[in-house]
């Protein structure tokens, strides 16, 4: 009986030991909730539409599983808006698009129309893309959602957003689902204050700032070379959205807020990034 008791205790210690290790030894990742179709009202602004595209790009669309600096499984899309027209002229292009907007849409629904060199399925000589068509299968984006993603991609590339705002078709857009009002920062200075960057940083467009974080004044000169293969703008994006990814020398990790992906719109990020990188807007 004593031996049996020992076996029981031993078994329980092992079993609960595994559970304990999982609970306390591994970081907690909360999987995203099942995606829902974005519901849009007929009178949204382009900024809001782009914001929805941002949300889909980083969420339901699962685009960042591959199109991210960390993964490296698919090309980064921060400049696709401007690259699209060049792709149309590429001799390997076999689609039917004639404009940048059509090219990006084609990339979403006919993913092998053009495969960026080095990113095709193994053994296909970059003629077949491993990317699924996003209007079908597990992702299943609607036309309106794909439009939002295209608008977002054009926007981050700094080119004109050519996507038309969705019409107010009542069947697709329930009236009761009006979007929440978003108070957007309208200048870099406003954005720095809104997101409390001035508490820790000094730099362009910041009149008074703290010193808990690095000076943003020299960022424009170094951002493009901090990470191999990562553009200056992409590095700024990573530094804001994932502040612990790269910690500047002499500063501590876990001091910068990590909730910007949920709070900051694309337009606001653009204002901040332009200021940091010294991009002059017309």
């Amino acid at each position, binding site marked *: 009986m004593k*031996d*049996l008791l020992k*076996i029981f205790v*031993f*078994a*329980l210690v*092992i*079993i*609960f030991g*595994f*559970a304990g*290790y*999982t*609970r306390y030894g*591994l*970081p*907690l*990742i*909360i*999987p*995203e*909730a*099942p*995606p829902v179709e974005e519901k849009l009202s007929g009178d949204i602004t382009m900024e809001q539409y782009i914001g929805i595209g941002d949300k889909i790009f*980083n*969420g339901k669309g*699962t685009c*960042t*599983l*591959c199109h*991210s600096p*960390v*993964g490296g*499984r698919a090309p980064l899309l921060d400049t696709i808006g401007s690259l699209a027209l060049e792709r149309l002229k590429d001799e390997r292009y076999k689609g039917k698009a004639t404009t940048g907007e059509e090219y990006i849409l084609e990339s979403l629904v006919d993913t092998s129309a053009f495969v960026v060199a080095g990113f095709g399925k*193994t053994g296909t000589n970059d003629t077949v893309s*491993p*990317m*699924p068509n996003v209007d*079908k*299968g*597990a*992702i*299943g984006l609607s036309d309106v959602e794909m439009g939002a993603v295209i608008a977002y991609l054009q926007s981050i590339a700094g080119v004109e957003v050519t996507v038309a705002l969705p019409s107010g078709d009542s069947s697709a857009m329930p009236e009761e689902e009006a979007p929440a009002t978003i108070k957007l920062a309208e200048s870099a200075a406003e954005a720095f204050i809104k997101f409390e960057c001035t508490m820790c940083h000094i730099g362009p467009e910041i009149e008074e700032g703290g010193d808990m974080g690095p000076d943003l004044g020299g960022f424009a000169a170094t951002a493009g070379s901090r990470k191999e293969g990562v553009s200056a703008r992409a590095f700024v994006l*990573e530094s804001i*959205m*994932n*502040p*612990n*990814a790269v910690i500047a020398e002499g500063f501590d*990790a*876990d001091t910068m807020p*990590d*909730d910007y*992906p*949920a709070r900051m719109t694309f337009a606001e990020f653009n204002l901040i990034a332009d200021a940091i990188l010294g991009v002059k807007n017309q």
Partner: protein
Amino acid sequence: MALKKNSSVAGNRYLKIFMVAFALAVLFPFSGSLELSAENFSVSDVWAEDAAGGEPAATEGEGADGESAEGEAVESNEWKPAPPPVLETKDYPLIPGFNSRMWVWYVAQLHLFFAAFVLGVPMFVWAIELIGVLSGDKRYDRMAHEFMKVSMTGFSLAASFGGLLAFLLFVCYPDFMSYMTSIFGKTMIFYAVLFFAESFFVYTYYYGWDAMDNAKMKKVHLALGLGLNIAGMTLMVVSNSWASFMMAPSGIGDDGAFLGNVWAAINGPLWNPLNLHRVIANVAYGGSLTAAYAAYKFVTVDPKATEDRAHYDWMGYTSFIVAMVGLLPLPFAGYWLTKEVYGYSQQMGITLMGGVFAWLFILQAVLIGAIFLSANYYLWCSLGRTEAAKRYYFMIKPLGIVIVIAFLMWFTPHTLIMTSTEVTQVGGTHHPVLGPFGVMAAKNTAVNTLILATFLSFQIFRRAGIKAVGDGFWAKNGTAIQVALYTAAMGNIVILGVYSYVIPASVRIGLSVPQVCTTAVVIILAMIIDGKMFKKSEEVSETKWGQMPMRSQYALFMLAISFTWLMGLMGYCRSAIRQHWHVYTVFRDNSVEAFTPTLPFAALHVTIIVVIFMALVFFMFWMPILASKKGKVGAEQKAH
């Protein structure tokens, strides 16, 4: 005496006739209507036939059969595939105080534990019985019989949980089951009827063991065992087709509507990888649980009953070897399955290995590491069975250090591919110092080192009580050649591992193949050399079965528990990878429970399931003991 012999022969004859008749009765219903392997099998024909009241469906130009009295086409007679419905939350039956998903999870996992056990055990039982027949050593026969005795309660429990699972699915997910039966209905009937064959074989195999223990009937008994394994294997591959369809559906259109060819639906991209993975895992799992049974008996048997202790020690050792034989190729079957997951859907593959489930594989490494550590510990303890093994004790400490280092490297994470939100939650993507140990270059090196070190422990154990004799080349030089072999192999594995750091990822992946080949070659060559070396050998000191420290048996318990927990974890992984889909990409789960659980949440429930299972396993172990007690009481009463 003569009369007894004649009646026995007559009985055997009747038994054979009965078995043939039964086999025909089971197989006959399927001989015409269900040609699962035929490419052209079409369920649409069958449905159309059913709709037409048993008459063949009307085809174009057949005239009256396809028309009503008024001459209008009867459209209802035509079978049309329907896409899966788009469900809403209210479409799922809600039973107050009853959580559908949790119930299905618990019951499905318990069913799988017992099913894996009762499918795995007969495989090696049959092999052990065959060894006993070929070698003439009755000890093998006794051991095989006892293994079957242990698994008998498992058959009932597996079937009970399977039945409960089926009812739960039909009650809690009627629309989902309607869709599944519209595709796999015939195979489900086949599956249910196959249980009769399974029951026939298992009962005749087990209860006929003593009755057929003679030269003539032993072959029949082995044939029954083979039938049992074939029936069990068929059951498994049929049910695997439903699970693999849910993960990677095939044989359907873009809208999810069944195209009519059931074979196309069965033979999906993940079906065969899943079949192979489960067959191997069943053997490993069956071995680990019977090892735990032997350990349980070893620990609880009267210490003075040396013969019994020796028997259970030997039984534990044999089960342990079976578990290891299953464990070593299991990672490769797992790689194939994962490769096919990537091939089917890169999105699913990345979610599995680099997304929200990435940390699960660190946990998996910890569990497999625990299995390797307990396996090696058991082997080192096994050296205590023979006095002459002391000459190898000096190797234990270095082996232990190598195994622990390899284990630590294996479960060191590096960069996890996550969304920016997930990266924020994790607090970074890699550790600045330990990060380099987390890449596949280090992990492949660590795994191969672990396997080689474990095999070396096994080799030491095998030669502990013997030595090669004679002046033959192998007897003289075998050990030196093996040392050179191991040294060269480790050098090759480490060099390839280090080289992997400086080459592109696409080339690096390819280097895992020569590493694995190196390990396989060493194992095969070392076994061949052992065979040649010890062709002529003498016993240096006797192997004293039963002379094992009590703590060694706890290593066997740890093996079984780690296996069980690991199976529960990977069961969660395989199912959760579908995320919010009943059938991936075509049939969405819109129930209130359609969320992906976090790892700690899953671990908690896996733990509870394992505790329930272990309690039932003790019950299963206790049953044969109870039966033998009854036998003893009966014998004592007769003696009085």
